[in-house]
Every structure is written in structure tokens, then in C-alpha cells.
């Protein structure tokens, strides 16, 4: 069981690490669009690792394999890009960007 605990701890720490760097990114970045990158990333690998740790933990509790954590990751994969897209789109419409060169003429 020590091996299992090591695996669980590994994924928990990994998840916490990625969530932390996401927050640090949010704090350190200088403008809106670069700030957007931190939080959208923390969800993918950070929450993914946490969900994996949870799945491993509950699978070894003796109540059979626990897989509904997969759903959390799945729903995040569907919702995270949409919310990021909304935020970016709103910011673009509010003209929060300095460099408009890459944008096509309207």
C-alpha cells in the first residue's frame, strides 16, 4: 500500500504545483491576455492530476474501481476553453490589446 500512497502523493503534489504556477502566472504577467494563460492551464494538468490522485485513492478503498473523476476532467476540457474564449473575446471587444497588427481589418 506504500506504493499506492506514493503514487497518490505524487499526483497530488504535481497537481498542486501546476495550480500554483497557474496562480503565479496570473500574478506575474503584465497584461490581460498573458494573464489569461495561467488559469486556463492550471485546470488542464493541475486538476487532471488531482482527479487522477482521487481516482487512485478511491479505487484502493475496497469499493471497486472509482472512475467518475474522469468526468471532472472531461467537463473541464469542454468548459475551460469556452470560458477562456469568452474572456478573450470580451477583452478584444473592449479594446484591451495594444498591438492590433495581427488582427484582420474589420
Amino acid at each position: 500500500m506504500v506504493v499506492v500512497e506514493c503514487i497518490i502523493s505524487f499526483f497530488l503534489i504535481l497537481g498542486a504545483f501546476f495550480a500554483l504556477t497557474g496562480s503565479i502566472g496570473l500574478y506575474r504577467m503584465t497584461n490581460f491576455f498573458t494573464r489569461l494563460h495561467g488559469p486556463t492551464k492550471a485546470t488542464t494538468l493541475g486538476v487532471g492530476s488531482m482527479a487522477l490522485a482521487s481516482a487512485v485513492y478511491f479505487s484502493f478503498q475496497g469499493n471497486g474501481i472509482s472512475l467518475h473523476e474522469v468526468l471532472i476532467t472531461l467537463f473541464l476540457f469542454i468548459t475551460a476553453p469556452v470560458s477562456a474564449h469568452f474572456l478573450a473575446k470580451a477583452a478584444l471587444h473592449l479594446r484591451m490589446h495594444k498591438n492590433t497588427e495581427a488582427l484582420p481589418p474589420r
Partner: protein
Amino acid sequence: MHNHKKPFLSAQRWLPHPLMTLMLIIIWLLLVNAISFGHIILGILFGVAIPWFTNRFWPERPKIAKPVQLVRFFFGTFLRDIIVANLNVVRLTLQSDISQLQPEFIAVPLDIADQMVISILASVISLTPGTVSAEITLDRRVLIVHGLDIPDQKAAVRTIKTRYEAPLKEIFSC
């Protein structure tokens, strides 16, 4: 409802989205976290009822032409890129001088016309760290992507097109 035009005993009418039905059954079984006869029946009930009621929101669906390639794309390219690019972003975030970053908007001209596949592509771009899809032009031909660190714009556009768009185009054959 346009369902009534189809013959009474056709699969098209009762199972408009067979893949969605299968997904809903799997999602239901994952949600209750148990496999029992009752839950399988309930799952099938949801799997048949939900696509039927939401049918009018899904006027046309992209056909998955190459399911094997879809699996390979998901595990080989998508999951791998999430991990690799996450480490990359961690490195970029924690580097001592973040003013060296070259955040940039890039315009990715699209070869895909199908709306569903475009939204899948946009989601993949957003989920793989370092890039967030920000906007699509009104004619749906150009996707505006924001990158955290883009030293070479042309190379970034090429990467997105060859690595994500081309496989998706092939998988959904559109």
C-alpha cells in the same frame, strides 16, 4: 418536428446521434460510479431520450471518418502536448525576467468549414498551454489566437495548422 418525416421504424428517427447515445450511457455509468443492470437500463433511457429532445439543436453532425486516428490524435498528440506545453509554460512563468516574453496575436487561416470541427480545433488550441483562441472572424475563415511566447509567428501558425488542423480535418473528413 422534422422527425415525423422519417419512417416510423428507422434508426435515423429514434437514434439521431448514435455516438452521443453511447457517450451519454458511459457518462451516466461514470456519474453513478457503478455498473448494475438498473443503471445500464437508466443510462440507455437517457441516451435515447436526450439526443431525441435536443435533436433540433444539432441540425447536422460531423462524421467521424477515422475513429482510430481520433484515438491516436487524442492520446498521441493532444494529451502529450498538454503535458509538454504545460511544462513549457511553467518554465516561462517562473523564469526570472518575464519581460523577455513575446506575447502575440496570430491569425490562423482555416481550411475547415464545419462549425463543430472549428470549435473542437479552438478548444484544442486553448487547452494546449501557451495559446488561447480569442476570436474568429465573421466569415469563419480566420481564427485569432493569442500566444504567450511567439518568437516566430509564421512557425506558430504552421505548427497549429499541421499539428492540429490537418489531423482534425482528416479525422472528420471535412
